[in-house]
Each structure stands twice: as C-alpha cells, then as structure tokens.
C-alpha cells in the first residue's frame, strides 16, 4: 500500500514535473520556425543544451521506471485513472513554473479531460 502510494506520487508529481522542465527548456530554446525534419532535429539538438532538459529527462526516467514497476503488479485500468490527476498538476505547474495564463475555458477543459480519461480507463 505504501509502495503503491510512493509509486503513484513519483509518476504523477515527478513525471509531470519532468514534463514541465522540458516545457521550460523549449521556452528557452525557441519555436519550430520551419516545418521540416532538419529544422525539427536542429531545434531538438539546441534544446539538449538546456539544463532543464536533463533535469526533466532524469525526472521522467524515474517516473517511467515507477510506472513499469507499478504495472507489473497493478492493472492498467487501476493505474491510468489515478495518473489522470497529472492533468491538474500540470496546469498548476504551468501557471507557477512556466508563467502560463490558464483561462477558465482551459480549466473546464482540463476537468472534463480528467473525468473522460477516468471513465474511459475504468470501463476497459
């Protein structure tokens, strides 16, 4: 039970935190100006020079192995609905860590996505 709680916390908080760090790195790196494979690879290469990418990758790696471990003894239909909370954690992190402005329509949308994901996975 305690192990499950720790693994869920690692997946939701550390995993979403890692994605937010990647978002910070992409904010620093710049936009994808030309929609070509070369431009995409070049942008991703520049992003690799940001410290935030590596912090993010480390955090997402921890979350990834936590997910693998949790899936080895829990069903996907139990794990994924709980991890839907990461949409809310992500929005809060987007405001405080990335300086995003989350309008009320986006909050409503995020709430509906959380509900929808929970129903989809619970009915598998």
């Amino acid at each position, binding site marked *: 039970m305690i192990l499950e709680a720790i693994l869920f916390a690692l997946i939701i908080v550390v995993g979403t935190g890692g994605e937010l760090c990647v978002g910070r790195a992409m904010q620093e790196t710049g936009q994808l100006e030309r929609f070509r494979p070369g431009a995409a690879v070049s942008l991703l290469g520049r992003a690799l020079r940001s410290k935030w990418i590596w912090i993010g990758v480390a955090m997402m790696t921890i979350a990834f192995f936590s997910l693998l471990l949790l899936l080895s003894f829990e069903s996907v239909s139990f794990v994924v609905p709980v991890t839907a909370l990461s949409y809310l954690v992500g929005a809060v992190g987007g405001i405080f860590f990335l300086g995003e402005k989350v309008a009320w329509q986006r909050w409503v949308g995020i709430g509906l*996505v959380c509900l929808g994901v929970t129903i989809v996975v619970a009915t598998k």
Partner: protein
Amino acid sequence: MTTEFAKTLDQPSQGMHTRLHLKTYILIAIMIVTGPVGNLLLAKNMKRVGTISMWPPSQLPELFIRVFGSFTIWAGIACLIAFISAYMLALSLADYSFVQPAAALGYGVIAVLGVFILHESVSPLHWLGIVIICLGVSFIRNTHPRTTENSR
C-alpha cells in the same frame, strides 16, 4: 506531397497564428497516435514478464534481459521516442497546459483503432468517456495555444 505541405505551412502568406495552430495540431496528431500505442506495447511486455522482484540483486541481470529482451518493448520505446519528440516540438509552439490535455485524444484514437482494425467491442460508457475528453479538448482549443513568450 509532404514537402509541398510543409512549404505551405512555412509560407509567410499564411497568417502567423494559422500556421502556429496548424503546426501545433499536426504535432498533437502525431502524439495522440504514438503515445497510447507505445504505452500499450509497454504494458503488454510487462504482463508477459510478470511480477518483478528486486531481491536478491543477483537476479537483476536476468530480470533486465527478461524486460528488455523482446521486440515489443523496443517497438514501444520507439513509439515513445516519436511521442516525446513531437511533444517537445509542440511545447516550442504552445503552452504545456494546452498540449498535455489535448494529447488525451489518444484514448479516442485507440478506441477507434480497436473497433475498426482489431474488431473489438467498445461499451457505450467507454464512448461517453471519449466524448467527454473531446468536449474537454474543444474547450481547451477555444483558448489561445500560447500565453507566454519564448525567451529568444
């Protein structure tokens, strides 16, 4: 044809916001296919491996081979690399709080693929969940994809 389409996206004659939105939506479309497929392949592999025991440590090399010694996990990892690349590129164009929930449309893609390719049955409640996700994404779509400025 793909190159022509890419040129169209890069043309200055297209409105800046239209091009930004189109690129973001194309990258989200790549994410909603590769992400769920990758996760399903990983789950399938871990079910095959069974319950993992981390003790005694002498068993770890054998465990590593059991987990990473199949095509399924590498196909899953390849899908997730494509997913994370599209995710990073989408984050260069749009907010995290816009891209992350929009990627949940992947659940709908999986259900549609299941029905039309694997001939699986999907319950009405499951479809209701997908409709709610689509409704949520339509709310998110009504907000501006980017509310912050790039540093450079």
